[in-house]
């Protein structure tokens, strides 16, 4: 791929990111750089704040401290107007799809175009149909979100995410809850769209196998910080116990199976409720 070296011009640069929710530290000094033009995945167990990280990149929430830069701009420093301009260059696929339920698939994909452009109806129609064709849903354009399967809803949302031809797409758990066929379609689509449209793709996921199959670069998030980074092949060869546990899907290890609790015997002998 004809893209700059990852270290030279990262599209996203996160430095010493701290984020707390109440007393709980979600991120405790996260540093990472997302290379341009690649598929980068952030893997981690459930509840480690992967979705929060995407929201921080999109400036929907503010960090406790640290910076998040997109295209060299600190997103927290932006006023509403420039932030919205930046977001037009960022697509986001939500875990639920987040399609507007009162609009058809066609109107959902047309939504950002209608909001931000003044295209003639015929051109807008052609654009929407082309986006839908890319995700294989041109024939489903008149359906409402409630009439779509989970996989179709996510594909429709993907067509909407690329409607404004963004330079980067953020995927929030794109594979969770998908049947094997839908998952296969989404895996292929993410890779193909990234390469065909020259995008940068950022996935957060806990599906190691599917994500490793398409990602150029992986970060592993655990214990409020990045515990591993590298290509899928490098991480598979890692000696780090936590990386081995996560990449191998082992139920227990540095990330414990049990939620912190007193010893079982004490609990069983305790007559209290």
């Amino acid at each position: 791929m004809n893209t700059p070296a990852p270290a030279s011009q990262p599209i996203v640069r996160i430095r010493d990111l701290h984020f707390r929710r109440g007393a709980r530290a979600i991120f405790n000094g996260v540093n990472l750089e997302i290379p341009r033009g690649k598929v980068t995945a952030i893997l981690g167990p459930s509840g480690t704040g992967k979705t929060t990280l995407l929201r921080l990149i999109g400036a929907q929430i503010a960090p406790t401290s640290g910076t998040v830069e997109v295209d060299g701009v600190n997103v927290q420093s932006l006023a509403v107007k420039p932030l919205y301009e930046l977001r037009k260059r960022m697509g986001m696929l939500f875990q639920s799809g987040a399609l507007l339920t009162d609009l058809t698939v066609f109107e959902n994909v047309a939504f950002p175009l209608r909001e931000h452009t003044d295209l003639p109806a015929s051109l807008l129609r052609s654009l929407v149909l082309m986006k839908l064709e890319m995700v294989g849903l041109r024939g489903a354009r008149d359906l409402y979100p409630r009439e779509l399967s989970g996989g179709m809803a996510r594909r429709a949302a993907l067509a909407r995410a690329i409607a404004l031809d963004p330079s980067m797409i953020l995927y929030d758990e794109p594979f969770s809850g998908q049947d094997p066929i839908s998952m296969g379609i989404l895996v292929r689509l993410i890779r193909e769209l990234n390469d065909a449209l020259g995008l940068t793709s950022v996935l957060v996921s806990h599906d190691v196998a599917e994500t490793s199959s398409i990602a150029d670069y992986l970060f592993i998030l655990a214990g409020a910080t990045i515990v591993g980074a590298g290509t899928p092949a490098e991480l598979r060869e890692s000696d780090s116990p936590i990386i081995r546990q996560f990449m191998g899907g082992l139920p227990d290890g540095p990330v414990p199976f049990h939620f912190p609790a007193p010893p079982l015997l004490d609990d069983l002998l305790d007559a209290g409720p």
Partner: protein
Amino acid sequence: MIELLAKLGRASLGVFERLGRGHLFLLAVLGRLPGLALRPRLLLQQMWSVGVQSLLIIVVSGSFVGMVLGLQGYNTLVTFGAEESLGVVVAKSLLRELGPVIAALLFAGRAGSALTAEIGFMKATEQLSAMEMMAVDPLGRVVAPRFVAGLLSMPLLAAIFTAIGVLGGYFCGVGLLGVDEGAFWSQMQAKVTLVQDVVNGVVIKSLAFGLVVSWIAVFEGYDAVPTSEGVSAATTRTVVHSSLAILGLDFVLTGLMFN
């Protein structure tokens, strides 16, 4: 004792914090109104779902309330031989109090709860977040049109409620109980005044109720905890708070207008 005071303090702080957030939210929505003026289609769509779709309950309720007023008013007035004044009693009761108040209570139950549930559901299903990420302001695109539609629909619905109520009173009084038709209409025409009755009652009161109900409804939806329990609780709060606000505000407005 200290624990009790601390709980009371925490609860009070929570209430004031929420009140503050509600007022800032209203200011933010009002700031989006110039943008809405450029997109009247959004407003018309919401006028349809908030206003027009509330018509059935308003018309049916208005006719029953008017008919009951006709029956009760006749029973009272006939004791004094003043049943020709039935038209005035029905019209003034409806214009000043029952029209705006009952229409607003019905509006809070029908449209206010729907607004809260719709916005809360959009929040719970990340539709509002998705709009933000598409660089579309949800306050301008979703909240402002619904707020203004509620505000404008309320006086129209109250006017329809009142008109239908008067016809209901006429049906019972003149049609069933034999009050003189000429007296019914002419006394109404003579005694009902435009400013004191119509403007104060149906226009100003209804606008005030429309503002409060729409504000509470859109704020509760936008501020809802994004879960099914959260949206359900927000919907309940909308109906309860709106109803109390309508009745309390009605007392204040009546005191200011008619005393």
